[in-house]
Protein backbone atom coordinates (compact mmCIF):
# COMPACT_ATOMS: atom_id res chain seq x y z
CA UNK A 1 0.00 0.00 0.00
CA UNK A 2 2.81 2.37 0.72
CA UNK A 3 4.00 4.54 -2.09
CA UNK A 4 6.86 6.93 -1.87
CA UNK A 5 5.59 9.54 -4.25
CA UNK A 6 2.89 11.98 -3.23
CA UNK A 7 0.08 11.06 -0.92
CA UNK A 8 -2.16 8.02 -0.86
CA UNK A 9 -5.12 8.99 -3.02
CA UNK A 10 -7.65 6.68 -1.48
CA UNK A 11 -9.92 9.24 0.13
CA UNK A 12 -11.92 10.93 -2.63
CA UNK A 13 -12.23 14.69 -2.33
CA UNK A 14 -15.03 16.34 -4.24
CA UNK A 15 -15.34 19.99 -5.00
CA UNK A 16 -18.77 21.55 -4.65
CA UNK A 17 -18.44 25.19 -5.38
CA UNK A 18 -16.25 26.63 -2.70
CA UNK A 19 -16.66 23.64 -0.43
CA UNK A 20 -14.47 20.58 -0.45
CA UNK A 21 -16.04 17.30 0.58
CA UNK A 22 -13.98 14.33 1.71
CA UNK A 23 -15.74 10.99 1.97
CA UNK A 24 -13.97 8.61 4.28
CA UNK A 25 -14.46 4.89 3.89
CA UNK A 26 -14.87 2.29 6.59
CA UNK A 27 -11.32 1.11 7.11
CA UNK A 28 -8.99 4.04 7.21
CA UNK A 29 -5.29 3.60 7.70
CA UNK A 30 -2.98 6.17 9.23
CA UNK A 31 -1.33 6.70 5.89
CA UNK A 32 -4.64 7.49 4.20
CA UNK A 33 -5.42 9.97 6.94
CA UNK A 34 -2.09 11.69 6.49
CA UNK A 35 -2.65 11.74 2.75
CA UNK A 36 -6.04 13.31 3.28
CA UNK A 37 -4.59 15.92 5.55
CA UNK A 38 -1.92 16.91 3.05
CA UNK A 39 -4.21 16.88 0.07
CA UNK A 40 -6.83 18.99 1.80
CA UNK A 41 -4.17 21.49 2.84
CA UNK A 42 -3.10 21.73 -0.77
CA UNK A 43 -6.58 21.95 -2.28
CA UNK A 44 -7.99 24.46 0.20
CA UNK A 45 -5.22 26.80 -0.80
CA UNK A 46 -5.45 26.15 -4.49
CA UNK A 47 -9.20 26.48 -4.79
CA UNK A 48 -9.54 29.07 -2.08
CA UNK A 49 -12.25 26.98 -0.54
CA UNK A 50 -14.20 28.47 2.31
CA UNK A 51 -15.40 25.17 3.71
CA UNK A 52 -14.35 21.58 4.20
CA UNK A 53 -16.78 18.79 4.98
CA UNK A 54 -15.34 15.51 6.17
CA UNK A 55 -17.93 12.76 6.02
CA UNK A 56 -17.19 9.92 8.42
CA UNK A 57 -20.55 8.17 8.21
CA UNK A 58 -19.04 4.81 7.30
CA UNK A 59 -16.05 5.08 9.62
CA UNK A 60 -16.22 2.33 12.21
CA UNK A 61 -13.70 3.75 14.64
CA UNK A 62 -12.27 7.18 15.41
CA UNK A 63 -9.13 6.67 17.45
CA UNK A 64 -6.59 9.08 18.88
CA UNK A 65 -4.66 9.39 15.64
CA UNK A 66 -7.75 10.08 13.59
CA UNK A 67 -8.92 12.62 16.14
CA UNK A 68 -5.56 14.39 16.13
CA UNK A 69 -5.55 14.46 12.36
CA UNK A 70 -9.02 15.96 12.24
CA UNK A 71 -7.85 18.67 14.63
CA UNK A 72 -4.88 19.34 12.37
CA UNK A 73 -7.04 19.48 9.28
CA UNK A 74 -9.37 21.97 10.97
CA UNK A 75 -6.48 24.14 12.10
CA UNK A 76 -4.70 24.08 8.76
CA UNK A 77 -7.88 24.84 6.86
CA UNK A 78 -8.63 27.71 9.20
CA UNK A 79 -5.22 29.19 8.51
CA UNK A 80 -6.12 29.16 4.86
CA UNK A 81 -9.51 30.69 5.40
CA UNK A 82 -11.77 27.67 5.44
CA UNK A 83 -14.06 26.25 8.10
CA UNK A 84 -14.18 22.52 8.67
CA UNK A 85 -17.14 20.38 9.67
CA UNK A 86 -16.98 16.70 10.49
CA UNK A 87 -20.28 15.02 9.70
CA UNK A 88 -21.77 11.63 10.25
CA UNK A 89 -20.10 10.42 13.42
CA UNK A 90 -22.07 7.30 14.31
CA UNK A 91 -23.51 6.65 17.79
CA UNK A 92 -21.05 3.90 18.68
CA UNK A 93 -18.09 5.81 17.36
CA UNK A 94 -19.12 8.95 19.23
CA UNK A 95 -19.61 7.17 22.51
CA UNK A 96 -16.41 5.19 22.08
CA UNK A 97 -14.48 8.40 21.59
CA UNK A 98 -15.96 9.96 24.69
CA UNK A 99 -15.24 6.86 26.75
CA UNK A 100 -11.65 6.77 25.65
CA UNK A 101 -11.30 10.44 26.43
CA UNK A 102 -10.95 11.76 22.90
CA UNK A 103 -12.60 14.98 21.91
CA UNK A 104 -13.11 17.19 18.93
CA UNK A 105 -13.22 20.35 20.97
CA UNK A 106 -13.01 23.25 18.59
CA UNK A 107 -13.92 21.21 15.55
CA UNK A 108 -17.44 21.62 14.25
CA UNK A 109 -19.53 18.54 13.94
CA UNK A 110 -22.89 17.96 12.34
CA UNK A 111 -25.26 15.10 11.83
CA UNK A 112 -24.86 14.66 8.11
CA UNK A 113 -23.82 16.34 4.90
CA UNK A 114 -26.90 18.53 4.65
CA UNK A 115 -26.47 19.78 8.18
CA UNK A 116 -22.79 20.24 7.61
CA UNK A 117 -23.45 22.46 4.65
CA UNK A 118 -26.00 24.46 6.62
CA UNK A 119 -23.48 24.87 9.39
CA UNK A 120 -20.85 26.16 7.00
CA UNK A 121 -23.32 28.63 5.55
CA UNK A 122 -24.07 29.87 9.01
CA UNK A 123 -20.47 30.14 10.02
CA UNK A 124 -19.63 32.06 6.89
CA UNK A 125 -21.88 34.82 8.15
CA UNK A 126 -20.17 35.11 11.50
CA UNK A 127 -17.63 37.75 12.04
CA UNK A 128 -14.63 37.42 14.27
CA UNK A 129 -12.36 34.51 14.90
CA UNK A 130 -13.45 31.23 16.28
CA UNK A 131 -11.73 29.26 18.98
CA UNK A 132 -9.58 26.42 17.81
Amino acid at each position, binding site marked *: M*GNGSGYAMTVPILKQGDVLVACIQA*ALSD*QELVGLRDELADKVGRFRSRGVIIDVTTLDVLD*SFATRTLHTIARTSRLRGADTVVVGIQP*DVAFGMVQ*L*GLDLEGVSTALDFEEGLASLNGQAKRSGSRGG
Partner: protein
Amino acid sequence: MAGDIFVAIHRETDIVTARQRGRELAAAIGFRSTDQTIIALAISEIARNIVSYAQRGGISLSRLDETGRHGILIVAKDDGPGIPDIELAMRDGYSTAKSLGVGLPGAKRVMDEFDLASAVGKGTTVTMKKWLR
Protein backbone atom coordinates in the same frame (compact mmCIF):
# COMPACT_ATOMS: atom_id res chain seq x y z
CA MET B 1 -7.63 -22.61 21.82
CA ALA B 2 -10.35 -21.96 19.31
CA GLY B 3 -10.59 -18.35 18.38
CA ASP B 4 -6.97 -17.48 18.99
CA ILE B 5 -5.88 -14.86 16.52
CA PHE B 6 -2.45 -13.40 16.19
CA VAL B 7 -1.73 -10.21 14.28
CA ALA B 8 1.86 -9.24 13.69
CA ILE B 9 2.36 -5.50 14.01
CA HIS B 10 5.13 -4.05 11.88
CA ARG B 11 3.56 -1.29 9.83
CA GLU B 12 0.77 1.10 10.46
CA THR B 13 -1.52 -0.79 8.09
CA ASP B 14 -1.37 -3.62 10.60
CA ILE B 15 -3.22 -1.38 13.04
CA VAL B 16 -6.29 -1.54 10.84
CA THR B 17 -5.98 -5.31 10.54
CA ALA B 18 -5.64 -5.73 14.28
CA ARG B 19 -8.70 -3.70 15.13
CA GLN B 20 -10.79 -5.35 12.44
CA ARG B 21 -9.89 -8.81 13.71
CA GLY B 22 -10.63 -7.60 17.19
CA ARG B 23 -14.02 -6.35 16.20
CA GLU B 24 -14.80 -9.62 14.42
CA LEU B 25 -13.82 -11.70 17.42
CA ALA B 26 -15.74 -9.43 19.77
CA ALA B 27 -18.81 -9.82 17.60
CA ALA B 28 -18.39 -13.59 17.55
CA ILE B 29 -18.12 -13.68 21.33
CA GLY B 30 -21.36 -11.76 21.52
CA PHE B 31 -20.35 -8.25 22.46
CA ARG B 32 -22.88 -5.57 21.55
CA SER B 33 -22.00 -3.14 18.80
CA THR B 34 -21.01 -0.38 21.22
CA ASP B 35 -18.54 -2.63 22.99
CA GLN B 36 -17.17 -3.92 19.70
CA THR B 37 -16.24 -0.36 18.87
CA ILE B 38 -14.65 0.13 22.28
CA ILE B 39 -12.60 -3.02 21.85
CA ALA B 40 -11.55 -1.99 18.35
CA LEU B 41 -10.54 1.39 19.73
CA ALA B 42 -8.46 -0.06 22.55
CA ILE B 43 -6.71 -2.40 20.11
CA SER B 44 -6.08 0.48 17.75
CA GLU B 45 -4.40 2.51 20.46
CA ILE B 46 -2.28 -0.38 21.68
CA ALA B 47 -1.29 -1.35 18.17
CA ARG B 48 -0.34 2.21 17.38
CA ASN B 49 1.96 2.26 20.38
CA ILE B 50 3.79 -0.74 19.01
CA VAL B 51 4.19 0.82 15.60
CA SER B 52 5.19 4.18 16.99
CA TYR B 53 8.11 3.21 19.10
CA ALA B 54 8.84 -0.48 18.96
CA GLN B 55 10.61 -2.45 16.25
CA ARG B 56 8.51 -5.54 16.28
CA GLY B 57 5.39 -6.60 17.97
CA GLY B 58 2.21 -8.51 17.82
CA ILE B 59 -1.25 -8.69 19.25
CA SER B 60 -2.99 -11.89 20.17
CA LEU B 61 -6.74 -11.99 20.52
CA SER B 62 -8.60 -14.80 22.19
CA ARG B 63 -11.84 -15.71 23.79
CA LEU B 64 -12.09 -15.89 27.55
CA ASP B 65 -14.28 -18.59 29.02
CA GLU B 66 -14.82 -18.87 32.74
CA THR B 67 -17.70 -20.33 34.69
CA GLY B 68 -20.55 -17.99 34.20
CA ARG B 69 -18.87 -15.45 32.00
CA HIS B 70 -17.23 -14.90 28.67
CA GLY B 71 -14.99 -12.20 27.39
CA ILE B 72 -12.12 -11.22 25.19
CA LEU B 73 -8.44 -11.30 25.98
CA ILE B 74 -6.02 -9.01 24.19
CA VAL B 75 -2.30 -9.31 24.68
CA ALA B 76 0.03 -6.89 22.94
CA LYS B 77 3.74 -7.62 23.05
CA ASP B 78 6.56 -5.66 21.57
CA ASP B 79 10.35 -5.73 21.46
CA GLY B 80 10.62 -2.03 21.85
CA PRO B 81 12.79 0.00 24.17
CA GLY B 82 10.40 -0.44 27.07
CA ILE B 83 8.69 2.26 29.06
CA PRO B 84 11.06 3.83 31.58
CA ASP B 85 8.38 5.43 33.69
CA ILE B 86 5.14 3.48 33.58
CA GLU B 87 3.37 5.77 35.99
CA LEU B 88 4.15 8.76 33.85
CA ALA B 89 3.07 6.98 30.69
CA MET B 90 -0.25 6.08 32.22
CA ARG B 91 -1.00 9.62 33.23
CA ASP B 92 -3.62 11.10 31.01
CA GLY B 93 -2.34 13.22 28.22
CA TYR B 94 1.30 12.35 28.65
CA SER B 95 2.88 12.34 25.27
CA THR B 96 6.32 11.96 23.80
CA ALA B 97 7.15 13.03 20.31
CA LYS B 98 5.61 9.94 18.83
CA SER B 99 2.93 10.20 21.44
CA LEU B 100 1.81 7.64 23.89
CA GLY B 101 -0.82 10.27 24.09
CA VAL B 102 -4.22 9.19 25.15
CA GLY B 103 -3.61 5.62 24.03
CA LEU B 104 -2.70 3.64 27.12
CA PRO B 105 -4.67 5.54 29.75
CA GLY B 106 -7.62 5.62 27.40
CA ALA B 107 -7.48 1.90 26.74
CA LYS B 108 -7.26 1.24 30.46
CA ARG B 109 -10.36 3.34 31.00
CA VAL B 110 -12.52 1.38 28.65
CA MET B 111 -11.39 -2.16 29.33
CA ASP B 112 -12.42 -4.14 32.40
CA GLU B 113 -8.95 -5.39 33.24
CA PHE B 114 -5.68 -3.82 32.19
CA ASP B 115 -2.11 -4.72 32.95
CA LEU B 116 1.09 -3.24 31.67
CA ALA B 117 4.46 -4.85 32.13
CA SER B 118 7.52 -3.15 30.75
CA ALA B 119 11.24 -3.03 31.32
CA VAL B 120 13.77 -0.79 29.65
CA GLY B 121 15.46 -2.75 26.88
CA LYS B 122 13.09 -5.64 27.28
CA GLY B 123 9.92 -4.49 25.61
CA THR B 124 6.37 -4.09 26.76
CA THR B 125 3.43 -6.38 27.30
CA VAL B 126 -0.06 -5.01 27.64
CA THR B 127 -2.81 -7.37 28.73
CA MET B 128 -6.44 -6.31 28.49
CA LYS B 129 -9.68 -8.08 29.20
CA LYS B 130 -13.28 -7.19 28.65
CA TRP B 131 -16.19 -9.25 29.91
CA LEU B 132 -19.62 -9.69 28.46
CA ARG B 133 -22.14 -8.09 30.72
